[in-house]
């Protein structure tokens, strides 16, 4: 395949992936927006004023970046894991496997679908947050780059889960028992400076903490973690998961016998 043909193959997979979740937007885009709006109402509007300030900002202002990030993480992941496992379950992944499309193009196509859903949900949640608080922007480049890196990272993680999944149960175990706890403990609702020393150190093992803090820096200009560390961790994880995903596709794990 020449580069032009590879581009066509990529566009085909990416378009197919975007259309997949767009066709069922009531199931894919609307629910996270409603859920996050409930977080804004309950934690921001009702409980927030009693909590007071966090790192010098109103509680609602403090949690908005984290909640946007949480929506992006869960949706990027969910999109790729369900799409990839669905294509294995219905066996239409074979359409791509028998074709000359290189594995890295297949991977990029799936990742684009996950990133697109993550960003669309992220934008929708941001728009809803405007109903509760005016948008505070400290650094637009940091906001965009960190949300993009996070969406890429969790799309890759979703693909790996999809490759290993053998049943529909397997695609919900990781999000329920790993992703959700890590997200809640990733500094969305609090600054880790409130934690005892031991838990502050333990929190540093949670990669989501770095992304939430860097993203919050883009909004508010404050972070528990240095930006350089956050970018290094995010990019490092992306490289590792990308290479591992490519290895899984090349060996046909879960696809070829």
């Amino acid at each position, binding site marked *: 395949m020449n580069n032009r043909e590879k581009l066509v193959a990529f*566009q085909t997979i990416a378009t197919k992936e975007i259309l*997949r979740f767009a066709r069922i937007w009531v199931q894919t885009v609307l629910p996270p927006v409603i859920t996050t709006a409930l977080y804004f109402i309950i934690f921001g509007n009702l409980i927030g004023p009693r909590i007071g300030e966090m790192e010098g900002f109103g509680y609602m202002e403090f949690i908005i970046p984290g909640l946007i990030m949480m929506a992006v993480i869960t949706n990027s992941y969910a999109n790729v894991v369900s799409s990839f496992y669905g294509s294995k379950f*219905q066996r239409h992944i*074979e359409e*791509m496997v*028998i074709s000359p*499309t290189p594995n890295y193009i297949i991977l990029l196509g799936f990742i684009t679908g996950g990133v697109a859903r993550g960003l669309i949900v992220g934008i929708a949640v941001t728009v809803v947050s405007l109903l509760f608080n005016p948008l505070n922007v400290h650094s637009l480049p940091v906001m965009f780059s960190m949300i993009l890196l996070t969406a890429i990272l969790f799309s890759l993680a979703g693909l790996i889960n999809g490759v290993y999944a053998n049943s529909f149960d397997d695609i919900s175990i990781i999000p329920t028992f790993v992703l959700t706890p890590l997200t809640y403990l990733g500094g969305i609702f609090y600054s880790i400076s409130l934690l005892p020393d031991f838990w502050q150190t333990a929190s540093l093992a949670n990669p989501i903490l770095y992304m939430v803090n860097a993203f919050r820096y883009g909004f508010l200009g404050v972070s528990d973690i240095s930006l350089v560390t956050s970018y290094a961790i995010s990019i490092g994880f992306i490289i590792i998961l990308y290479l591992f995903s490519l290895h899984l596709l090349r060996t046909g794990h879960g696809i070829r016998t």
Partner: protein
Amino acid sequence: MTAALSIRDLRKTYKGGHVALKGVSFDVNPGDFFALLGPNGAGKTTIIGIISSLINKSGGTVSIFGHDLAEEPAVAKAFLGLVPQEFNFNMFEPAIEVVANQAGYYGIPRAEAFRRAEKYLKHLDLWDKRRMMARNLSGGMKRRLMIARALVHEPRLLILDEPTAGVDIEIRRSMWKFLREINAAGTTIILTTHYLEEAESLCRNIAIIDEGELIENTSTKQLLNTLHMETFLLDVDTALDSPPKSESHTLKLVDPTTLEAEICRGESINSLFTELSQHGIRVVSMRNKTNRLEELFMNLVENGAGSRGQA
């Protein structure tokens, strides 16, 4: 002449130790209509899976139009179209997108992909259903959709794994006609089927595989020439209590108005009618008891199993 498909010493052992292929070698010439036959579990689908990169081989080589599948996968894959045994398209996509997306995986730009999708959906009488979700198509339509999808990148080698399974006779005949047309236009076709009448009617060459080994690879004509006996069923106009005595033919009574007769290949059938007339029996209709190829197939597989058992 470069073979459309060349397989050498192809081996496959699945995890768990099951040996599916024990070193299969054969060639398919360009333009051929080739049947790959064998009983269930013989290894046909494993061979097709390896050719189409859906199954990892344990040993051997596969070349498509001279391009080794392991060395030049992208080039070799571009020549190949596959119609698998089971439905493997996205059931939640409209039929036209199933076909156009497949073209995209071969680098065919979107506008051209839709033009070709229209051409093949029209050829296969699916154009009216193009906007219908694939899951809502009937079984026969789904099979035809897979053929349209396999042809959209205009492959030089088309493999069909039991394409007419579960399809009614009318659709089956129209699919045969279509396959003959694309073969006449130059596409090499490899077909697996359990309908041996289909293989006899369509294919010029036949390979038979059993228990992971090739037990026959010859032309359909040559294979049929090896038949010595044919069995006919004769419907007679009067009910009989027992089969008439015959010195030259073996006759059995299937039911009071049906006789079974074995005729040596090359022997005139007139002598049988003469004999029956002498007994006052009038034949009103006559048919082959079994498909000729079916008879041969059973002989080969049974003999093969016997000789393997002795070994």
